[in-house]
């Protein structure tokens, strides 16, 4: 069976539209009768990933593929890249500016939560070129 595919472009300038991809995805997953808890995990992973692209990478593209056994999410950007993935993945690590922190982001919990809520995660990054985060959530 061919997976069901959704694609979104994330605007790096627009704070308020971040979260649209995850809420569109949520709508589709509800139509498929996917368990509520799985949908929640997908939403959290996507939302955090989207926010990171907006806050740290000036936008990017999101693809979601719903297959028979898993949901695959790919977030690709052409931002600055992540110098130290290990550090970025640790709880509380953040390079967010004070300005961003005032908006309520920058707790350094995004990537750790994404890792916690998905079943598989992979980060490919190259400084000055961009970052691609892929996640898989089993059905």
């Amino acid at each position, binding site marked *: *069976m*061919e*997976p*069901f595919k959704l694609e979104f472009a994330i605007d790096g300038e627009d704070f308020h539209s971040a*979260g649209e991809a*995850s*809420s569109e995805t*949520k709508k*589709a997953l*509800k*139509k*498929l*009768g*996917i368990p*509520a*808890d799985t*949908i*929640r995990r997908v*939403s*959290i992973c996507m*939302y955090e990933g989207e926010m990171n692209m907006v806050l740290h990478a000036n936008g990017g593209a999101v693809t979601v593929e*719903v297959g*028979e056994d898993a949901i695959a999410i790919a977030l690709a950007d052409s931002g600055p890249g992540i110098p130290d993935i290990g550090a970025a993945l640790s709880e509380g690590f953040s390079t967010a500016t004070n300005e961003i922190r005032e908006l309520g982001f920058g707790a350094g919990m995004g990537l750790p939560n994404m890792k916690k809520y998905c079943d598989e995660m992979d980060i490919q990054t190259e400084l000055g070129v961009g970052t691609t985060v892929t996640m898989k959530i089993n*059905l």
Partner: protein
Amino acid sequence: MPISVRLDKEKCKGCTRCVKQCPTEAIRVRFGLAKILEDRCIDCAQCVRVCPQHAKRAVADSLDDIKKFRHTIVLPAPSLYGQFNALDDVNIVLQALLDLGFDEVFEVAAAAELLSDLTLRELDESSFEKPVISSACPAVVRLISQRFPNLIPHISEHIAPVELAAKLARERARAATGLDDRDIGVFFISPCPAKVTEAHYPLGLKEPVIDGALSMAEVYKLLLPLMKRVKNPPKLRTAGFTGVGWASAGGEARPLRKYNVISCDGLENVIRLLDAIEDKFLPDVDYLELLACEPGCVGGCLTAVNPFAARARIMRLSGAADIKLKPLDIDDVYKVWRGERIRHTPTTILDEDFRKAIEKLKRIEDLNESLPGLDCGSCGSPGCHALAQDVVMGYAEETDCIFNARAQMEDGGDGQHYLPPPFRRR
């Protein structure tokens, strides 16, 4: 699930205004009539408000029904107090209700006050999953039961104030009169169709506790002349301002304000908020007061006067010195609990079989791509995407889209003249 919103077939022109405004996409125009898909309708009455022909209306029970009982009790919703200009003494309204033919009056506001006290105590003990979602607005509870299964466990275990009022009033009347339950008639004066439906088909209650729900606007008309005649009314009022405040948005939240409470009114706002809560994007919220109508129950479509004027009057009543009257005794807290779980009634799933559901979703998205994306509504569905879904689910045909129909017409020219002028292109 039965509903309390009806279509007047004589008046409906099939204009599709309500189709586009229904927050649950529960309406389709077929053969010139705006039909409601009952399993999706949550009785929010948005369609009643927007119909230019007044073809959609909310129905309620008849006052004549009180004749079926030997002893009758009336339960006025707090929003009733906001209907009257320059009302300083609530006792006048309560006396006029008795003059209307009821044997007893029991204020829903009094029950609301009990619930406020109890909720405050429970939040102090903090024994449940937060945020707790108020169960006071049945349109919201129905929405959650359809669309937000994750949040069902967050819905307060408390019954609604009107239900508590009904239980307490009936118990008191039973003790005082010695009559059987079936001889005691308990009638609610309702601001909305959602509460009319709820009176007869309460979600999460084993059986109804209310015998009928009357339209506030109808009762209002009957009360006006009666109120003029009331001189020196007895002290019938038992509710303080805390309870009366529940009539408009923020009133339920106010007594809980030492906690992190969000008050949100208007169904579109509520849906957006629930979406955020569902994904846990709003941490640290303790309690949610959610109301389908703006600004709260004073905006229900069975009320008689402008909602904002009514709110101002309620604020005037509840803003006066905070004389909170002694709460009713409540030894038996169990009376406040709902007793049954609210069940998930999914309305959005395309197919029970996951593979088939995926195939359907793909076809919907493909078809959606081929539609013009104008959401013109002339097909009778709420928008292009909804039509795509209706087609795949077998409720509509591709040629219901006027653009598709045009493409099929064998036509020498470019076919523009088959389109209504707003859709013609140069």
